[in-house]
């Protein structure tokens, strides 16, 4: 946490309202995101209890598992989820635009441009909290290796047809969420926490209700009071008025409401199975339906407040103008989405349990590169983020006080003007340190020459982006009186050293992975929870 954000939190404490931590929106928000509010059963590894899911804030689809330990009911839940998620994903996969990509020609080994399809939009999944992202990943892991009856007639517990495909998409969303700055799968608490500083700690910010209470306190109440109510207030039945955003439920809810309801459901089901004639069966079917509806109502009562909170959060985020580089990062998400769509269409097997060495190294390199890119782009898009970088000595801003023309000492002298900047910042400049400023969206580099008057005046030599002629192109050199901001970090990230193709993996890293084989499904036992 930088001192600037600590200060924002302290201001939030004293004003009773969250303070801005960003002046623009740093994440892409789709016009039609798919919001997913899941609940799980305590103690089981990701066994779903229910969910609200959909793209229409007024008409979410309620999914519930009346007995979470029943495999058929769990499969029914996943099949229903697939019926919502997959059409949404397919809807984005259809419209494409032409794009160019550089590829290595397999015959000549040269880098050539090829024309490919790029999906015009990509799906966006929004969950309430970080634990929701983990659940998406877990659901993906638990379903992508499942076999349907069509794939394997001998499978002991065949999965409904589209469930393995759902697993592959959820896995892709979960993996992409690990790339800094990506927006395919977002946790609402993370995004809100990025844009507002509340008067509580980051640990407490994980509670969506409390976080929103600070950002948007009800009339006549401070953020602290509203947050406290969101965290702790219980109704006459001992239930939290603002249920946890999940996927874990409140133990008091499990013990007092859910467990008796599930027990009633189990009893109704046993009674139905033991019915002796049609009339009796009809009666008991009615009782079973009533018991099931009760559980559905319980699930709805715990997920609906969170569902509304997520949409309120989206409203607040939409009020912020989008950062200049957000579109570019979203294009990367679209590439990632298109790539996975093509892999699915090409009939490739699901993502393996463990990546091979080259894929894993590539993923790590991507995450590092994207982290650096995100940090640089956020600073360029947002003066408040840049202020943090200036405070830490990684950037400086000021007014140009003098420009002296100078030339390089080569056969064809090129312009190397010396620019003096007056600044209050204290950047960490060493001899010939490279600095960059944004010139029409492109980085222009300069090097540090000397500092005068105890660092108040910084002399820089501009190095590039001035055209080919002897005289610099108009507008390419700052003029006296201009406000400029230089950074010590690079604006664009270079790719690291190229890794070998997977077939060329050296023996030190396990050797070539061989043909991608379809991994076996998890062995199933009677007591399995998924």
């Amino acid at each position: 946490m930088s001192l600037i954000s600590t200060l924002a939190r302290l201001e939030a404490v004293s004003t009773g309202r969250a303070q801005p931590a960003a002046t623009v929106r740093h994440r892409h928000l789709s016009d039609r995101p798919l919001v997913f509010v899941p609940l799980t059963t305590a103690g089981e590894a990701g066994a779903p209890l229910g969910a609200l899911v959909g793209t229409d804030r007024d008409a979410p689809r309620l999914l519930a598992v009346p007995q979470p330990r029943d495999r058929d009911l769990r499969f029914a839940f996943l099949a229903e989820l697939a019926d919502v998620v997959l059409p949404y994903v397919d809807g984005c996969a259809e419209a494409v635009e032409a794009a160019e990509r550089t590829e290595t020609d397999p015959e000549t080994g040269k880098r050539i441009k090829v024309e490919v399809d790029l999906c015009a939009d990509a799906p966006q999944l929004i969950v309430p909290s970080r634990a929701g992202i983990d659940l998406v990943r877990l659901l993906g892991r638990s379903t992508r290796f499942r076999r349907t009856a069509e794939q394997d007639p001998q499978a002991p517990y065949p999965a409904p047809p589209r469930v393995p495909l759902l697993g592959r998409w959820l896995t892709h969303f979960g993996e992409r969420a690990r790339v800094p700055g990506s927006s395919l799968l977002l946790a609402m608490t993370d995004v809100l926490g990025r844009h507002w500083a509340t008067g509580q700690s980051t640990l407490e910010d994980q509670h969506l209700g409390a976080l929103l209470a600070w950002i948007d306190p009800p009339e006549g109440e401070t953020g602290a009071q509203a947050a406290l109510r969101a965290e702790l207030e219980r109704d006459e039945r001992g239930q939290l008025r603002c249920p946890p955003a999940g996927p874990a439920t409140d133990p008091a809810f499990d013990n007092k409401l859910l467990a008796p309801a599930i027990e009633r459901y189990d009893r109704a089901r046993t009674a139905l199975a033991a019915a002796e004639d049609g009339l009796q069966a009809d009666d008991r079917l009615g009782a079973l339906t009533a018991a099931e509806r009760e559980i559905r109502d319980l699930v709805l009562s715990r997920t609906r407040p969170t569902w509304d909170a997520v949409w309120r959060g989206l409203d607040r985020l939409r009020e912020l103008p989008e950062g200049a580089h957000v579109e570019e990062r979203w294009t990367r998400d679209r590439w990632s989405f298109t790539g996975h769509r093509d892999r699915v269409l090409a009939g490739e097997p699901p993502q393996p349990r463990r990546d091979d060495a080259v894929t894993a190294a590539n993923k790590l390199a991507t995450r590092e590169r994207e982290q650096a890119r995100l940090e640089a782009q956020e600073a360029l898009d947002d003066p408040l983020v840049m202020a943090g970088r200036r405070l830490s000595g990684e950037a400086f801003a000021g007014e140009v006080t003098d420009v002296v023309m100078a030339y390089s000492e080569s056969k064809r002298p090129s312009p190397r003007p010396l620019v003096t900047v007056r600044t209050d910042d204290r950047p960490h400049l060493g001899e010939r340190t490279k600095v960059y400023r944004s010139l029409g969206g492109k980085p222009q580099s300069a090097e540090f020459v000397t500092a005068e008057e105890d660092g108040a005046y910084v002399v820089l030599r501009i190095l590039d982006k001035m055209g080919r002629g002897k005289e610099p192109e108009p507008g390419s050199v700052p003029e006296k009186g201009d406000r400029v901001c230089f950074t010590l970090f690079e604006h664009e990230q270079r790719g690291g050293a190229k890794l070998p193709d997977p077939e060329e993996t050296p023996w030190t890293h396990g050797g070539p992975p061989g043909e991608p084989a379809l991994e076996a499904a998890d062995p199933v036992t009677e007591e399995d929870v998924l």
Partner: protein
Amino acid sequence: MPPPRTRGTALRHRLAELRGPDVPAKALDARALAALAANPGCARRAILDGAGVNKAALASALGAPSAFGQSQFALTRGNAFEAKVKADGGAELLRLVHEKLDRSAEPPTGARVPDLTATGPQGRTARTALELREAGAHPGAWTLLDHPMLALDVAGSLAFLEPDAVVVHPDGSWTVVEIKSFPLLDGSADPAKVGAAARQAAVYVLALEELAARLRPAPRVRHRILLVCPRDFSNLPAASAVDIRKQRAVTARQLNRLTRIEEIAEKLPEGTCFSPELPADELTAAVESVPATYAPECLSTCELAFHCRTRSREEGAVTSLGRPARAELGGLSTVAEVLAAARGETGDPADPAVAALRRAAALRAEALEAAACR
């Protein structure tokens, strides 16, 4: 004239008074152990845990009930899994210990599983110690102690601990077994949960080492414990050896550093009592007479955290925003102080913390203004 009481019994007597008449002492559970490691400098937590006060009941009586609780689904599932692991005289559990920790030993067949039932924690501790000594008399045999009871001296008072199991190897060494119900998925588990299990096991190892030091010859307590979890999405056990040397060293150091409970008890006003039966204002006064060091991390480890948080916020303590916030503000510890210093109303500009704060405030104001103009 009664015989002069020893220091030990005097302290025990004093702690019983603090707990209140007829209130039984509460054993140190996993959460108290975690709080111990998370916040060793908190005198309030130290005395309450040391005296065996039920902090959950205390928090409710103070009007700031803790949000902890366990779902019966999790409980049922956890118990079912533990029973499955320990079924058939612990055959599967011992097979895992043999496979993961001691492959050179004879495979376990027909291990000894002594009965450890006894009355009261003291009785069960003595029984456990006896059986551990007894196991030493059977070299070459495997012994499984199911839910033994161990005692550990925590800042001057005895805390009773109950590990899931302790295994005595044929060479006489001891291993702690932790059975947890979070899954081991494709060979890896949630690092936060594994870390918590390792810290918990480290306390058991320390308690066993104290016990081992009293035996001749002293048996070795292994520093690799066995963590047993459900495999993937099934109910089948999968185990992994976890090296807890680091957690053991950290916990041992923090136990030594703990403010002596005696010293805290001496500073308390006469007649202080933490019984949940007392009226709320008296209880609040009693709790406030012991200083606390609240940090947001307490929320996940201590039942009293909501009470302490309210106090910390009322005082405007910067730490309620997190320890890192406190660390970068130098000598300024309250919200009002920091904001006044940032606005240039108070504070010495030569103080680097104050200078940095003013610079940060100026930069922030400039940036917000620039954004508002757009």
